[in-house]
């Protein structure tokens, strides 16, 4: 007889053997819930993340940049799709998840509540925000849940392309006129600290980490990943002559990495709790798109239903 205990044993054996849990396998409720929360939050971040960059598609400064930015924002929509599909394998449909986003029940990455006010922000987002996202996401390619890990392999390939593209925008600006260089530095100043916040609270106060590590959903702690990001990014900034806006930043020979100043967690909490500079605008844009699209979705379903009815009538005739 199969007992819960034996199912649970098998589950942990699979995890410990570094094999994948698949949709039809037994899994603990909390594992399922954690995955749905994390994957849907990631999906929502992709969809909301289209807005700050979408803001500059119509104003991109050259044809080459316009095409690249359009393609990039389109990739984000694609990531949203894979991730919603990964959630569906856990029994939660896209409509339900979107509803959670629209009612404010589900969160998305707070970074997208900052405004994109100059062209250089397209560079900074690619370089820093996508860079931080990759740090978080590369380990997820080995996540214990099969559909999520496979979606992440694809997402990471595209994100790394976006990151190079963003850095290339920054490089072009940094090598350009005084005005362009100042624009690049200003964007770095505004996006640096919010990017560090993307790794989440310090390990000492992080609430979701321990079980996620045991389940091999998460492989490294928030602080470890943040440190890697800083160590990777500082030399990149130096290479193009930009200055990281942190007077306490200093290379520590002993740990072979950078020490950096304290993060303003009060600001982080404010933005998470809905008081960032663009929280209202982002939600309003999302809700408007959804509401404006309602008649379209209804009409498409009505037509599809009519079509499949008449097709089944033909088959039975």
């Amino acid at each position, binding site marked *: 007889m199969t007992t819960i205990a034996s199912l649970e044993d098998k589950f942990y054996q699979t995890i410990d053997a570094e094999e994948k849990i698949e949709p039809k396998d037994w899994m603990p409720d909390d594992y399922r819930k954690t995955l749905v929360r994390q994957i849907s939050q990631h999906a929502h971040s992709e*969809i909301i993340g*289209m*807005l700050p960059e*979408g803001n500059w*598609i*119509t*104003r*991109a*400064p*050259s*044809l080459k*940049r*316009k*095409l690249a930015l*359009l*393609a990039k*924002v*389109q990739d984000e*929509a*694609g990531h*949203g*799709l894979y991730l*919603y599909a990964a959630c569906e394998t856990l029994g939660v449909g896209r409509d339900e998840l979107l509803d959670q986003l629209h009612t404010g029940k589900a969160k998305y990455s707070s970074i997208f509540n900052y405004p994109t006010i100059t*062209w250089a922000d397209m560079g900074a987002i690619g370089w820093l925000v996508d860079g931080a996202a990759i740090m978080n996401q590369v380990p997820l390619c080995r996540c214990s849940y099969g559909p999520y890990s496979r979606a992440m392999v694809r997402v990471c390939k595209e994100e790394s392309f976006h990151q190079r593209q963003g850095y290339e*925008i920054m490089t*072009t*600006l940094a090598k*350009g*006129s005084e*005005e*362009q260089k100042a624009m690049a530095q200003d964007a770095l100043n505004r996006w640096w600290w919010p990017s560090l916040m993307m790794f989440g609270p310090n390990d000492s106060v992080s609430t979701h980490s321990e079980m996620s590590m045991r389940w091999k959903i998460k492989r490294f702690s928030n602080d470890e990943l943040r440190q890697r990001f800083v160590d990777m990014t500082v030399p990149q900034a130096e290479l193009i002559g930009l200055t990281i806006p942190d007077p306490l930043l200093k290379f520590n020979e002993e740990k072979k990495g950078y020490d950096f100043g304290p993060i303003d967690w009060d600001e982080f909490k404010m933005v998470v709790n809905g008081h960032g500079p663009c929280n209202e605008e982002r939600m309003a*844009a999302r809700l*408007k*798109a959804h509401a*404006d*699209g*309602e*008649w*379209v*979705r*209804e*009409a*498409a379903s*009505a*037509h*599809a239903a*009519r079509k499949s009815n008449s097709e089944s009538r033909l088959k039975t005739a």
Partner: protein
Amino acid sequence: MQHSRLKFILQWADNSMILGQRLSEWCGHGPVLEHDIALTNIALDLIGEARYLYQYAAVLEANGKSEDDYPFLRKEQEFFNVLLVEQPNEDWAVTMVRQFMFDCHHLHFLNGMSGSDDPHLSEIALKTAKEARYHLKYSSDWVIRLGDGTAESKTRMQDALDKLAKFQNELFIPGEAEVEMIKVGICPDMGSIREKAFATFDEVIKEAGLTFAKPAVGRSGGKNGIHSEHMGYLLATMQYMQRTYPGLDW
């Protein structure tokens, strides 16, 4: 002749560029994720097509211009696109009817252009006709789906059709540059394009259960650089960076 050829190329490029710019406004705001992606694809194709043509224009002019000078540094009256493509997106119905009207012309125009006596233009036409065939399939499907959807979608589609009908004919009235290019075999005869385009158009409108009333008076002027009031705002947005920071590389 050289002047007419350049104007003809720019007119073709501007149609795709301005419609691509309009479609790109939808990115992130579509009714459903799959169609946000699909519409962005069409925008990418159209702007890509315009880019080939602007590059060719720069080669022909041979005066140091780049592909970016054409979309970002010309004045409003130096754009020769038809009025249809600059009309605002409004809702999904208007966007789809505008797209469908454009695609009916675009595909058959490109098919005709693939036999052009200008080998470079015929190559561009051959390459982009494949994409245009997909665009027409996409917009036709939406016209049928929404015409045959709900009462609301049908009303919206009929309103969109009535509203945009007056802009459709401009696509088929040869402008100055086209007349010259038809004479030398660079541009195909517009009469046969019109016939094929309307055959497709009528069939889809019928299947969608919509009615098309030929407008009493058509609107035109774009081919001569006289645009609707919408064009200035579109350019103000599109040209913002190049106008604010002249002469820089991005």
